[in-house]
């Protein structure tokens, strides 16, 4: 895993789909369109300054779309979660393309709140102005083969979730959204514009979707090339500046390290990989685009990284126009390029074959360890009570005993495992209750205490003598390791980052969970394990709340996965430490 960001690994990105032909067209977005975007920005700023309500803003937007000659409408929605309810109004417009049958569509979207600080209230006014101005501009060409849908969503993620689920006719129990009166065809690709600052220096690409889904790499690569060569805007992965100082090496590091290009490159890559793992493992969308992946829409967010210059509406308009032209060329869905990749630099990526083994190797090691425990459990070395009686002829202390076959108490171990997963479900159920959300001090302690104390009675179990039955702890450890290994290897195909994080966190503790005769040591090991399993309830309350809200709003299965799969697995290992060993 440490080797993944190595500069020697990875290969350059390339366009795989022949139809795309990125950057091969003349762009027609000109200063008149920029001017119109500026006028819209003024109007939106006026709306912001007088604290206009969502309905008011949506009313203004829909009127502007209609003035452009497009069919436009609004959509109201209400989410009800344990944390309260959120309402908002989305606006969208459909531009039917000349001569096209309207069976395929592309989406150009902007959310009212920027992704800066995960929707902390920074407004995306320039993004919305760009969408409005693009609507006027794009509908004037007859070359579109796909319908264009312009969407301005309210809020940060909630608005798009309401819109995209309504578009696909999917109902969500805690969401009440108006049905869409205007529809188009199947959406193939989507670009989300996020432009919070005054000007920008780079365009950052955000691509992680819900539950670790990624868009086809051709979309990112086309955008990267178009931005670089047509728009003249350098592209970054996320908002990570490319500068050498930004690595943040402490001042005491020797100069030779500071000046090493290899090390700098490694540092940049580590940062990108960690950011990626952070989004993907938590199943979190890195922008509004991420909500579209669940409906097989390839989508990315173009994030205009706030700076004092030199780029503005002129550049972003050209880049979006040219990228849409490229996607317009598609005869089939994006399928040629990679769906599993690790983008370490804007133009360098790792194929699945290069990074998958890191998690799989840990998983295989755990499986082998588990099998060894299984074999160990099957027989026991019993030293001869009367040495020198039987084995005189062979001699030597090593042979002074015999292997006894013994039974394996599989059922007991499985009962413990099932019970621990059931406990995880109880914890998850309780976490989603309102009283947990509203009580920041005692609720986490109670929640942590419940699974931590439940297995303690096992301490009272008497120490077992050597019998013809293997000790429970060995059996439990064996099955626990095998199960964890299976979970990791399956998960690595669905969500590599989550699998890697689990392998990293649980790999060593689970393998080295051992039974000791010393009660204090047993308890100490138990405490370490239990903190690994459930410590997040107390220590990372903010993360817990975010994960639960993601689960309720967007159906991200990170929270239930941690409660029902990961924590119980570590808990089983904790029980292994706690169980009395044989005398």
């Amino acid at each position, binding site marked *: 895993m440490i080797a993944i960001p190595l500069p020697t690994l990875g290969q350059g990105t390339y366009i795989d789909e022949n*139809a795309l032909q990125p950057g091969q067209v003349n762009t027609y977005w000109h200063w008149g369109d920029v001017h119109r975007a500026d006028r819209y920005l003024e109007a939106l700023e006026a709306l912001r300054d007088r604290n206009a309500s969502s309905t008011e803003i949506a009313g203004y937007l829909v*009127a502007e779309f*209609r*003035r*452009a*000659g497009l*069919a436009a409408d609004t959509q109201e929605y209400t989410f009800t979660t344990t944390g309260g309810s959120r309402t908002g109004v989305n606006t969208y417009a459909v531009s*039917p393309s*000349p*001569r*096209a*049958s*309207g*069976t*395929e569509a592309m989406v150009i979207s902007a959310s009212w709140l920027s992704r800066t600080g995960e929707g902390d209230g920074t407004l995306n006014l320039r993004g919305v102005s760009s969408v409005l101005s693009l609507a006027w501009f794009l509908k*004037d060409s*007859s070359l579109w083969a796909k319908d264009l849908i312009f969407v301005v969503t309210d809020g940060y993620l909630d608005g798009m979730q309401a819109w995209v689920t309504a578009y*696909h*006719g*999917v109902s969500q129990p805690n969401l009440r959204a108006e049905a869409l*009166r205007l*529809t188009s*065809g*199947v959406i193939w690709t989507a670009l989300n514009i996020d432009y919070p600052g005054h000007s920008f220096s780079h365009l950052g690409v955000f691509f992680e979707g819900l539950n670790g889904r990624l868009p086809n790499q051709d979309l990112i690569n086309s955008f990267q090339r178009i931005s670089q060569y047509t728009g003249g805007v350098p592209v970054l992965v996320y908002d990570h500046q490319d500068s050498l100082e930004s690595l943040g090496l402490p001042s005491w590091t020797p100069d030779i390290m500071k000046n090493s290009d290899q090390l700098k490159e490694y540092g940049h890559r580590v940062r990108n990989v960690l950011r990626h793992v952070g989004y993907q493992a938590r199943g979190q969308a890195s922008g509004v685009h991420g909500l579209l992946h*669940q*409906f*097989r829409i390839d989508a990315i967010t173009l994030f205009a990284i706030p700076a004092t210059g030199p780029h503005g509406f002129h550049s972003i308009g050209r880049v979006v126009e040219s990228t849409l032209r490229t996607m317009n060329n598609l*005869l*089939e*869905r994006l*399928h040629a390029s990679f769906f599993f990749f690790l983008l370490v630099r804007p133009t360098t990526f790792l194929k699945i074959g290069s990074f998958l083994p890191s998690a799989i190797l840990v998983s295989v090691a755990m499986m082998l360890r588990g099998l060894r425990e299984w074999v160990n459990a099957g027989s026991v070395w019993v030293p001869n009570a009367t040495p020198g009686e039987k084995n005189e002829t062979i001699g030597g202390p090593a042979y002074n005993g015999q292997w006894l076959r013994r039974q394996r108490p599989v059922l007991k171990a499985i009962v413990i495992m099932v019970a621990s997963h059931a406990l995880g479900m109880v914890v998850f159920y309780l976490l989603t209750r309102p009283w947990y959300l509203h009580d920041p001090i005692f609720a986490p302690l109670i929640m942590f205490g419940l699974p931590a104390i439940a297995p303690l009675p096992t301490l009272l179990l008497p120490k077992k003598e050597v019998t013809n039955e293997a000790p429970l702890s060995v059996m439990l450890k064996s099955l626990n390791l095998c199960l964890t290994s299976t979970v990791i290897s399956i998960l690595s195909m669905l969500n590599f980052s989550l699998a890697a994080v689990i392998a990293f966190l649980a790999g060593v503790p689970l393998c080295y969970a051992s039974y000791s005769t010393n009660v204090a040591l047993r308890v100490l090991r138990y405490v370490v394990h239990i903190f690994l399993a459930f410590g997040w309830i107390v220590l990372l309350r903010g993360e817990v709340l975010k994960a639960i809200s993601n689960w309720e709003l967007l159906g991200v299965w990170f929270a239930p996965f941690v409660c029902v799969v990961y924590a119980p697995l570590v808990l089983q290992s904790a029980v292994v430490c706690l169980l009395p060993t044989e005398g």
Partner: protein
Amino acid sequence: MRYSFKSFVCTLCLGVTVAALSEEFHEELFLRPLRDGKVSARFSFSTLLNGAVPRDPETLGAEDESQLYTLFPLALGQILREYAVTELHLTLNAGKWNYDRWGYPDEPGVGTGAELWAWMGEGGIASVDNRWLGLRNALAGLFCASLGSLDEQRTTSPVLTFQPEGSLPNSTVNYRLRHATLPSEHVCTENLTPFLKLLPCKSLSGIASLLNPHKLFDADWHGLGMHVRYLEGAGVEVRLATQAVLDPVRTSSDKRRDWSLSAIFDRRIEKACPVARSSVIRVRLPQNETYAIVPSPSTMDSIYATYLVREMEKPLDVAILWPEETKFVYPTAIEPQTHISVHRTLNGASQHAGHLALTVTNNHDTELQAGYLETMPWLLQFYLHTLHAEIDGVLRDDLVKLISYTPALPHVQPALLQAVLTLPPRSTMRLTMDVVKPFLAYTEHPPDAQRGWDLPPAVFVPFASQNASQIGSDPQQGAVLSDVRSTRMYTPVLLVDLATPDFSMPYNVIIMSCTLIALIFGMVFNTLTRKFVVVRVDEKKSS
């Protein structure tokens, strides 16, 4: 002088022949400004073969009478005689007709892609289905369109919606309808060129000279149509039609909606078609607006201006100007221009099951009824028992009267669903039905780029409800509705994603893994089965 004399002689000769064979050619261009600044143009070229009767299918085995036409297209005439077709309609359209903004089209057949339907009499040596097969292939050749793909898997017989537009001779013969649509068919120059060849003046003179492919195929919507029908007492009529919705606002530099023939077609009428019995340009005039129309028309009333091309000064360039507008302002809200509005969507992201949803809105103050037709290939299979109608969230299954349903047979025939919906005034009905997407055999996947399968449009025929017409006190309302009768409305087509293997990828994987397994197996098997024996070479023997 010489030129005009020559053309006079030419016209005279042609005129004489026309008179002798009794063929008439009429051409008309109808231009209609639309609410959203666009212009709808409909070209209609009809040739009437006076006194002709469609071939009786009983005579198919015998030798046919000789066909001598002057104006009537021979290539088409031969096809009609060969397969004894009584009535034939072929449309090739590109785009999505926007009923809400553009109203009813002047030519009702506006379904996206290709649509072919024919009425044929039974009898004779060849069955109707055999002749339908031949007809498809012959027309495919004539129009350079993939009409050959309109096979049994797409052919249905929806007699309620597609009634004959002419008359059917000899009522003792049973007539059969064959109808098929191919929504993925694209219309382009290769279809227009053979279409123009069927006209007596080609695109050299007359109204047809305006058919400039560069402009026609840049329109927001365009379509070609061919309609053959038998008119009792008159003869066989072939009508070739072209329809387009052009956008002068988009193409003008200053965003005005002023249009002229030279602006929207990039051509003017330089000379009239000499063989045309009538050649008319009709323009629907804008209502309640200040406008100017040039040149001054031959006749004009409050709704239409009419130009008789033959009498007008050439070159003729009809134009409407709105001198008071500096820039076209789109109306913020356009009232739906049709009696009902229909939206059809296919929901569900999975590749196995889905959900077909239609919303039908009655834009009128009276109760309406609408015939609903689905001719769905087996690529999408209905669960008819899940068909439900809702109005404002209240289940109203009583408003759907199912007329007939033929379920689809996988790999064989499409489903045919005909129903009548009753639409209460000013209300929106939501029809939903669960559908299932089947698996295709691997040979059924097309070899070209795979984007999904286009599904044909649903067809709606709005008509006045019987209750309403009984109660109906407003005669004007009744007139409007009778006018609507038999106007078909096509919904946009749908795209369905069926489970499609990535054909190249498994192939690579299979080859790669088979090679590896073969190599490993070979080595392991070899090592396991080979017996290694130390052979001591006996020195005595060898020496």
